[in-house]
């Protein structure tokens, strides 16, 4: 991703000007900034909620924008004291530490929050932040339930804040090349997209429940989830392999790979009419997300099929070998070949690997030149930069809340079909499962007091 250090103020504002018709959220004061450096009133004051694991990387990335004066990091927050202490060191002098993110939401000087908490907190924290008027960058997947997604979309719209979901694959240089290649009909009409991914892990060494470590506020880690005793296989990071908190690879990486599919297929705002999943569970341990998985989403008007498959490593398509002379600042070696998607058109196929911070397009798309009269597509200046643009101009972000929730809903519905062991019908307009009352109940999940939407 292009870092802010490489983006001067003129470039940034030029990018920001792409949506002149939109109402800006932050009004620049008119104070002249030093050359290449934003004025104080143009800086976005951020707070970081959840600063371990992925949250730590988001903090580091945001730090890169602090030097050129695009942001001012004011606060960090975590319910793990050790992680909070490390983040405080990382963030630097003057940054305020918090245990409870709601103190941050009370601060009027904070413009925006960067949320890097476990997935089961995303819905609640996005809604709360929006209700407090904060702009939001939230890690993917956007939500854990259909109900959370609805509430997130409603609160972001109602409070007119800019939200960016962290499916940053859309903002990668090769994602632009792939998108442009596909929409110009190079493989003809696309009727099928097959996403592939290596399996979710199994817990080979289960452990019994125990007392939580002293530095961890277990109750607040659980937050909206039903209470249960601590087990060190829940966290940190490993929450991803539990259906209720992380959802397995389909929600972790599906929110990336399927996000690209929805973007490139022009399918944001649409949804499948049926979802059918099968899978194999772990044979022991706490984690319960499917190890192998096969989900088929059927779309209508236009008709196409999207599949998500977690498959044995030896069945994954091989990664394209890249010649040294091809590599540059934007075109890099494929370092994560274990996931991606195959686009099947009536005149050929196209494959990409990755789909998150690493997105690699097949050579033929990289080498393709846009002809005169060809259709160009939006080229994101970078995922954070695109968000800043949204904050400053009101322009819709590339992974806006509707798109983020739409991608997450695919993951949620796939898991629901797997859990229930039956095909589901989905009404996109009404945002509801059809004809299955038990499945409808599972579109939401009661939340513990007071950690609720």
């Amino acid at each position: 991703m292009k870092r802010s250090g490489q983006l001067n103020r003129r470039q940034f504002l030029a990018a920001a000007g792409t949506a002149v018709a939109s109402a800006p959220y932050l009004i620049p004061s008119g104070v002249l900034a030093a050359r290449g450096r934003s004025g104080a009133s143009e800086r976005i004051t951020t707070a970081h909620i959840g600063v371990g694991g992925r949250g730590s990387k988001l903090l580091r990335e945001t730090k890169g924008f602090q030097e050129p004066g695009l942001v001012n990091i004011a606060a960090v927050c975590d319910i793990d004291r050790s992680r909070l202490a490390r983040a405080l060191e990382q963030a630097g002098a003057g940054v305020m530490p918090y245990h409870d993110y709601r103190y941050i939401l009370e601060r009027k000087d904070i413009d925006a929050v960067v949320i890097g908490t476990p997935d089961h907190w995303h819905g609640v924290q996005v809604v709360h932040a929006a209700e407090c008027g904060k702009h939001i960058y939230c890690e993917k997947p956007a939500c854990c339930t259909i109900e959370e997604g609805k509430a997130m979309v409603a609160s972001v719209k109602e409070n007119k804040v800019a939200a960016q979901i962290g499916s940053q694959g859309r903002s990668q240089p090769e994602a632009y090349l792939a998108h442009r290649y596909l929409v110009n009909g190079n493989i003809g009409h696309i009727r099928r997209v097959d996403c592939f991914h290596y399996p979710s892990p199994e817990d080979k060494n289960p452990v019994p429940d125990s007392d939580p470590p002293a530095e961890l506020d277990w109750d607040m880690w659980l937050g909206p989830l039903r209470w249960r005793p601590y087990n060190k296989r829940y966290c940190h990071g490993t929450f991803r392999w539990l259906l209720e908190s992380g959802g397995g690879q389909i929600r972790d990486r599906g929110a990336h790979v399927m996000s690209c599919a929805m973007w490139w297929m022009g399918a944001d705002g649409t949804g499948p009419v049926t979802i059918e999943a099968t899978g194999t569970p772990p044979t022991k341990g706490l984690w319960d997300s499917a190890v192998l998985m096969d989900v088929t989403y059927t779309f209508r008007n236009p008709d196409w099929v999207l599949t998500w498959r977690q498959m044995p490593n030896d069945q994954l398509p091989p990664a394209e070998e890249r010649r040294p002379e091809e590599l540059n600042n934007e075109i890099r070696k494929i370092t994560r070949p274990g996931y991606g998607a195959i686009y099947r058109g009536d005149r050929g196929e196209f494959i990409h690997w990755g789909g998150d911070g690493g997105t690699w397009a097949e050579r033929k798309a990289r080498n393709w030149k846009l002809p005169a009269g060809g259709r160009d597509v939006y080229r994101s200046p970078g995922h954070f930069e695109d968000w800043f643009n949204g904050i400053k101009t009101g322009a819709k972000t590339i992974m806006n809340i509707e798109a983020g929730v739409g991608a997450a809903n695919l993951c949620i519905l796939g898991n629901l079909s797997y859990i229930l062991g039956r095909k589901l019908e989905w009404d996109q307009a009404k945002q509801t499962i059809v004809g299955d009352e038990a499945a409808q109940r599972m579109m939401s999940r009661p939340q513990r007091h007071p950690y609720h939407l």
Partner: protein
Amino acid sequence: MSMNNLSRKSLAAGAAGLFAAPAGTARPETVDELIARIRDASDKVRTEAWLNAGKAGAPAVKPLAKVMTDNDLEVARAAKRALWKLVRDAGRPRAGRQTRAVEAELIGLLGDDQAVLVRREALWMLSEIGGRNSIKPVAQLMKNAELREDARMSLERIPTKRAITALKARFKAAPEDFKAHIAQSLRKRGEQVAGYPCRKLAPTRKTDLKPL
């Protein structure tokens, strides 16, 4: 590069065949057989057993609940997963009679004679398939200090007016420290609640760390 190395046929479905019903069992598995396989020492056998527990129906509910407290963590876990499988199968569309039979057995797991972990799990299972018969026994557990929060959430999810009526009744009688919890459920169900404003944005926990 060939794109055809990713087969279009269902890979996971093929892998799921690894966990198909045991060979040669044309007749339905008895509850005793199911329990024996849930208790098996082999991870694979236990997994096969719980994956195929869906059709065991109401008669298997109490025996499985008993195994949920087994000293062997993996056996207990397999029993819990089998019970969930059974509940999800019972909740399928047009399964009315089976749903109610399983519901009745789950209600039987809410009593004082059951371990807390079993009662808690039963509350959540009833949140998915419980109907009018579940309302009173679930609401009753809102008086239980250990289980009241799970009971509240279970009741919140059961989509009947009776559930709202029960929440209102418990709200009136609840101790002061629990009223805000029930108020949350009532608001979620579209009810107005006076005197107990939403606390979701009220911070409560401070850190002892200081800025650098």
